[in-house]
């Protein structure tokens, strides 16, 4: 930190063409120091378009949180290293593999994004519901139902051109998951059925239902393998480059993140949802229809889960079969909460867990670290990150005080 301070200050004061990177670090530093202290300088930065952009992307609170999160992830990896050592592995080799596998080269980065894609969707699924005060543990089931409907549409209508067929198929995925979520909302509103229970139960139901479909009515002729007919080419999410699996689904995910932001920021119903989530009584008093809002939100949340499924089927698998999700629905919960239900946070959270997954594969392959150890590291990351988030709220002042003292400034 001290290092940043000296460097950045110098650069910023005597070099107006400081790079974006420097400015980011500088901003981070300014934020850590606390609001207000350097407001004049912040104003200064606001004058410049790039500075404004950074300020938009990293408002002070966000920057502080981000810093804490990064430190948390590193602490988790540190403890993970001890675990690897304990089971007789080599932490150095393991983390080299993790790094190489998740961002060692362009291909690895793209693979990380491939894995981040469904996680962003399921993260959104949880976040939509959470913003309206609902806890959606059901993204996994919604994912399967979305995958199912997308497969149904995507494996028929092959005569349509891609430009029509693909969007319709994605929509089908959205609707498949959406309806599955809608039932949850309806049960809640109509019968007061607790959504934690119903979503957990519906996950099982969906998984068995898919199992039934692919061994029964949807089985690919002649019926040798329990999987559906392949998706026609006109409904496949195109890949960007030869040799990488990164496909258009990622763009769709980013679009959905934008829509998520747009929904809650710009739309009336988004505002209503947040009011419902934050004070149900107030929503009633203000003449909103909280029941309808809840059902709608569960439909959209389910839809996001459904898109995660459609994305996997149309972008990666090309057909429906049992167990095609490795628990993306559950990881989405962690993604949303680590990302604090914010659009930007969900993207970062998705990438973080995507990186753990792709890097984890490499750890298994090269460093021969067993999958179980990778789970341990993953859980450590979650634990440290959520613990770190509390530092943000509670101890920021104390930390700042210590920080200032150590810096000898002010």
């Amino acid at each position, binding site marked *: 930190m001290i290092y940043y301070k000296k460097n950045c200050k110098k650069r910023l004061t005597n070099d107006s063409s400081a790079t974006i990177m420097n400015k980011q670090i500088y901003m981070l530093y300014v934020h850590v120091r606390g609001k207000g202290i350097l407001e004049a300088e912040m104003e200064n930065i606001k004058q410049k378009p790039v500075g404004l952009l950074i300020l938009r992307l990293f408002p002070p609170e966000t920057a502080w949180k981000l810093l804490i999160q990064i430190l948390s992830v590193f602490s988790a990896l540190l403890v993970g290293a001890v675990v690897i050592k304990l089971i007789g592995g080599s932490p150095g080799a393991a983390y080299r593999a993790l790094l190489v596998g998740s961002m060692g080269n362009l291909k690895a980065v793209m693979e990380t994004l491939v894995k981040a894609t469904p996680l962003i969707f399921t993260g959104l699924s949880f976040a939509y519901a959470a913003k309206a005060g609902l806890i959606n543990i059901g993204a996994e089931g919604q994912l399967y139902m979305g995958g199912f409907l997308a497969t149904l549409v995507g494996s028929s209508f092959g005569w349509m051109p891609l430009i029509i067929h693909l969007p319709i198929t994605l929509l089908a995925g959205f609707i498949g998951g959406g309806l599955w979520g809608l039932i949850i909302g309806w049960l809640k509103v109509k019968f007061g059925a607790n959504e934690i229970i119903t979503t957990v139960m519906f996950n099982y139901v969906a998984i068995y239902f898919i199992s039934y479909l692919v061994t029964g009515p949807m089985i690919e002729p002649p019926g040798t393998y329990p999987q559906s007919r392949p998706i026609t080419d006109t409904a496949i999410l195109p890949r960007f480059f030869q040799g990488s699996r990164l496909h258009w689904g990622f763009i769709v995910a980013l679009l959905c993140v934008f829509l998520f932001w747009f929904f809650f*920021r*710009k*739309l*009336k119903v988004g*505002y*209503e949802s*947040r*009011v419902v989530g*934050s*004070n149900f*009584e*107030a929503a*009633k*008093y*203000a*003449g*909103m*229809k909280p029941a309808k809002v809840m059902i709608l939100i569960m439909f959209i949340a389910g839809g996001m889960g459904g898109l995660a499924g459609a994305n996997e089927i149309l972008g990666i698998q090309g057909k429906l079969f049992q167990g095609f999700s490795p628990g993306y629905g559950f990881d989405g919960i962690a993604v949303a909460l680590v990302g604090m239900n914010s659009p930007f946070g969900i993207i970062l959270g998705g990438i973080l867990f995507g990186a753990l997954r792709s890097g984890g594969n490499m750890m298994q392959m090269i460093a021969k670290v067993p999958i179980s150890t990778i789970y341990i590291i993953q859980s450590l990351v979650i634990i440290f990150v959520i613990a770190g988030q509390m530092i943000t709220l*509670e101890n920021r*002042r104390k930390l700042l005080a210590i920080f200032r003292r150590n810096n000898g400034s002010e």
Partner: protein
Amino acid sequence: MSINILEMKNITKTFPGGVIANKNINLKLRKGEVHTLLGENGAGKSTIMNILSGLYSPDSGNILINEKPVSLNSPKDAIKYGIGMVYQHFQLIPELSVVENVILGIKQRREPFLDIKGSADRILEYSNKYNMGIDPCAMVWQLSVGQQQWVEIIKALYRGARILVLDEPTAVLIPQEIDQLFNMIRQFTAADFSVIFISHKINEVKEISDRITILRKGQKVNTVETSEVSKPELAEMMVGREVLFKAYKKKAVPGVPALVLDKIEADNSKGLQALKIVSLAVKKGEILGIAGVDGNGQSELVEVIMGLRKSTSGSVKVMDKDVTNAHPREILDCSVGHIPEDRRVSGLMLEMNLRENLILHDYHTVPHSKFLLNWKFIKEHAEKLIEDYDIRTPNSDVLAGKLSGGNQQKLILARELHGNPDILVAMHATRGLDVGAIEYVHKNIIAQRDAGAAILYVSTEIDELLNISDRIAVIHSGEIMGIVNPDNVTIKELGLMMAGSKKDTLL
């Protein structure tokens, strides 16, 4: 010469976020005295008492009990030293019975088993001694607010309190209950208990206390003998300026009836009848006060008007439009403003910021939104309202939950009044506010009346109703006991009607 049973020395407390709630406060409590803490909203009264009760820990300062320094790290410690606290926001658990609430955390005779029967008997003893009329086996949610106050007091006594702290106990009591409370307090002091009393009502303070300590902005202004100060002096010490006790108001010029209730009946949430053939008409340009003890159907009345509760018979008309059992949105859209009963329960979204709270009723209308929300306008508008209504906050980014009670109420006023509604339904609009803030609220509501609004003003404060209303309807057990003119009715008559006598039987 009585000794100081309690002494608080140089107490300082800063909250995270930087609010200095108490700064070097010194306080001495004599044995057997009633000592009042007086101060504006947010002056730090509750904070210092919470420190005394062990709930908060001070940044610095000492506490002495019987001249010996003690450390109060938790409510448990405070209880041990005989400090009994009745909190401003009751600390009763509605889902539990009276006995369970009282014996919570107390070692039982046949530990680990609860001694429900024995405890109930003891509670009954207290209840009889102080004439409280408490059923120990009732669930707390079944009790009226006044009774809950008694339960809080029993709770403190049951734990062997010698120092009783009452944080704004009278804010939620009706006149008869206040008399009853003062009798209790006199019984306590007669038994050599000491009482710390917090209130915004200067009349009461003059009546009950021996000495008064005035706080302003977290600091002690003075400690005075009650007999040596006048009411205006107190008010001025508290607010730092002169205060008008009587709202200045012109004679009302009532117009046509704007809000008309015709033979309304409705049930409460437990399915019992809450309103019995209520007929009322509020005219434009008048304030109709609704007086009554809490829980006599006021909430249901307001809810029926606002479309939040279905009436079982009768009709509601707003400006000649029948809105019986209409959706709340439809009613609000008829230019109806609503100051809800409890700002924290239904009025505000505490985790949302000020501008988001301010648009709660308008967000769906132009120019707040056309197809999309126009945050630029919303922000500018919010900042204007914050200025107009003198809401003390750095900016509109602040979360509503972070405002002090008085400012939260102003936030609601700003939201409900800025559009100059034709009809305003206000409930407990000044509950817990200091004299300065009350003055402010009254001024605004009267201004609305003068601008031609029809105002239904529900309150449990008789003084306030007499002060502000043009007519007062008294409600008891869901029935209107009569409508009186505030200029020729006595407090006693109102009290009797609130207790269930019909107006005609009084005359």
